[in-house]
C-alpha cells in the first residue's frame, strides 16, 4: 500500500484489538471455574456414546482456541504495525 496511514489510528485500532481479544480469552478462561460451581453437571456430562466428559473437551478446545486467537492477533497486529515512512511522518 502506498497511502500513508495515520499512526495514531493504527495504535487505537491495535489497542481495540488487544482489549477485545483479552476479554475473549479471560471470559473463556474464567468460564472454566463455572465447571466447579453452577456448571459442574455440564462439565461432567459425557460426550455422545463415550466416556469423554465435556470438561475435557472444553479444556482441549481452550488450548486450541487460544492458539487460534494468537494466530489471528499475529496476523492483525502485523497489518497494524506502522511502517517506517508512516512513523517518520508521525514523528514530525
Amino acid at each position, binding site marked *: 500500500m502506498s497511502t500513508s496511514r495515520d*499512526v495514531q489510528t*493504527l*495504535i487505537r485500532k*491495535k*489497542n481495540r484489538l*488487544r482489549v477485545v*481479544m*483479552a476479554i475473549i*480469552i*479471560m471470559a473463556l*478462561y*474464567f468460564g*472454566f*471455574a*463455572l*465447571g*466447579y*460451581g*453452577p456448571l*459442574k453437571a455440564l*462439565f*461432567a456430562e*459425557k460426550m455422545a456414546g*463415550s*466416556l*469423554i*466428559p465435556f*470438561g*475435557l473437551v472444553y*479444556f*482441549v478446545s*481452550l*488450548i486450541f482456541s*487460544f*492458539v487460534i*486467537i*494468537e*494466530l489471528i*492477533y*499475529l496476523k492483525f*497486529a*502485523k497489518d497494524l*504495525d*506502522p511502517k517506517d515512512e508512516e*512513523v517518520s511522518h*508521525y*514523528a514530525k
Partner: protein
Amino acid sequence: MLSKPLPIRLLSLFPLFLFSSLALAAGSIDGEVERQSVNPTAIAMFLVFVCVTLYISYWASKRTTTSAEFYTAGGGISGLQNGAAIAGDFMSAASFLGITALIYATGIDGMTLALAAFAGWPMMLILLSERVRNLGKVTFTDVVALRLEQTRTRVIAVLGSVSVVVMYLIAQMVGAGKLIELLFGLPYEVAVIIVAALVMAYVAFGGMLATTWVQIVKALLLLSGITIIGVLVLYSVDFNLNELLRQAVDKHPRGDDILTNGVWIDDPIQILTLLVSMMFGTLGLPHILMRLFTVPNMEESRRSAFYASVFIGYFFLLLIVAGFGTIVFVMGNPEYTDSAGKLLGGGNMAAIHLANAVGGDLLMGFMSAVAFATILAVVAGLTVAGSAAISHDLYAQVLCKGKPDPDKEIRLTRIVTLVLGLLAVALGIVFQEQNVAVIATLPMVVAASVNLPILLLSLYWSKLTTRGAVAGAIVGFVSAIGLIIVGPKVWVDIIGFEKALFPYDYPALFTMPAAFLAIWIVSKMDNSKRAQEDRANFEGLVRQSETGRIA
C-alpha cells in the same frame, strides 16, 4: 486391589496435591520423598546433558563480553528460538511430575492446573510482548521506570523482581534437592550443590546466551520425552482416548468420579483464586519478561510468545494423556506400588514409573535426566534475572544514574551471579525441612499483585504517576504476604491454628485488584509536579512502545 470408597492411602497424598499447583508455578517438588537407589542410566544421560551444556557455556562465554550481551544474548535470538527457551524456562519438573501425580490421585482436575499454567501466554502475546520489547532493554523495571521517576520506581520494581526470584529460587532449590534425591539416589546437599555449581558455570561464563541454549536443549528434551510417553500410552489403546479413559476408570478406586471436576478442590472461588494467580502471575515473572529482550524487535517478540504458547500448550495436552496413563499402567501395579497401594518413592513418582512401564529403564533414565536438566534451566533463568535486577537496575541505573563503568558492571554482574549461586545453596539447605508449599505460593501471587499492576498500567494508563505505582506495589506486596500468612498454609499448617483467618490459598484474586485500586486512587489524587511529568510522558511512551522509535 484398591477398594471404594476413596481409600485412606489416597487421601494421605492430598496435602501434596493441594499445593502442587503452586509447586507447578514455582517448579517445586514437595511432599514425601524416599531416596531411590542410584540410577546409572539416568546419571549417564544427565552427564551427557551436562557436557553438552558446559560446552555451550564455553562457546557462549566467547560471545559474551558486554553487559548487554550478558543480559540479553546481544538481542540476536530468533522468535522461534526464544519461544523454545521461554518454554524451557517455564515448563518445570514439577509441572511434569506434579500434574501427572495430580491426575493419578484425582483424575481430571489435573487439567485445571495445566490450563492455569498455559493461559498466561496468549495474554503475554497480546498485552505485553510488543510494548515491553520496544520500551525495555534488560528488565521489565526498565519499562516501568521509563515514564516515571527513576529511583523510586526502580527500587519498588526491584523489590518485586528480587522477591519473586528469591522465593522462586528457594522453591526450586528445595525441589531440586528432593527430586534428585528421589530420582538419582544422591544426598540432598550434594544435589543442591551440583545444581548451584552448574548454574553458576552456565550463567557466570555464558550469561543469557548460554542460559538460552540450555533452556532450548532442555525444552526439546522434555518435549521429546513427553511425546514418546504420550505416543506409547496412546499406542497401548490403539490411539483411542475413550479406551484410555475407560481403563483408567476401571483401575481407579474413585471410578467414574475421576472424570468429574471437583475431586481435588470443590470450591469455585478457590479455583478462581488459583486461575487468577496463575494467569496474572505468569505475566509478572521477571525472568520470563526478561526473555522478551533477547530478540531483535517486537515482531520477533510476538513470535516468541506465540511459539512459547504452542510448545507449552502441546506439553500440557500430552501431560493429560500421560496423567491418565499413570492410572492405567502404574496404579495397582506391584512393580510400582507397595502392598498398601502407595507409589514407591512417593507421590511424585507416578510419571517416572509410567516412563518405566511404557519404555523400560532407558526411558525412565531419560526422563529422570530431563527432570534434572529442567531444574538447571529454570534456575539459570532465575539467576540471570536476579543478577540483572541487582547489577543493572540497582547498580547501573540507580547508583550510577544510568552511566556505569561497563567493565565494573560486567564484573559486578558475574560476582552477583556467583553470590546468587552460593545463596541458592544456602537457601536450599536452610529451607530443606521447611514447608516449601508456602514459599512456592508466594512468587506467583507477588508477581500478580506487585509486578503486573505497575507494568500493565505503566504501558496502558496515561494517568499513572510514580506515587501511584509505589503505593500500588506496596499494597500488592503487603496484602499478598499478609493474606498468605493468615491463610490456610501458614496460619493452620505452620502456626497450628485450627482455622485460617483467610480461607483461600492464592490471594491474588483479592490482592491484585487491591494493588490496581491503590494505584488508581493515589494516581488520581496525585497533583505533584512529578505527577504532571509522569502523565505528560505517556504520549512519547506510546509512540516508542508501538513504533520502537524513541520520541
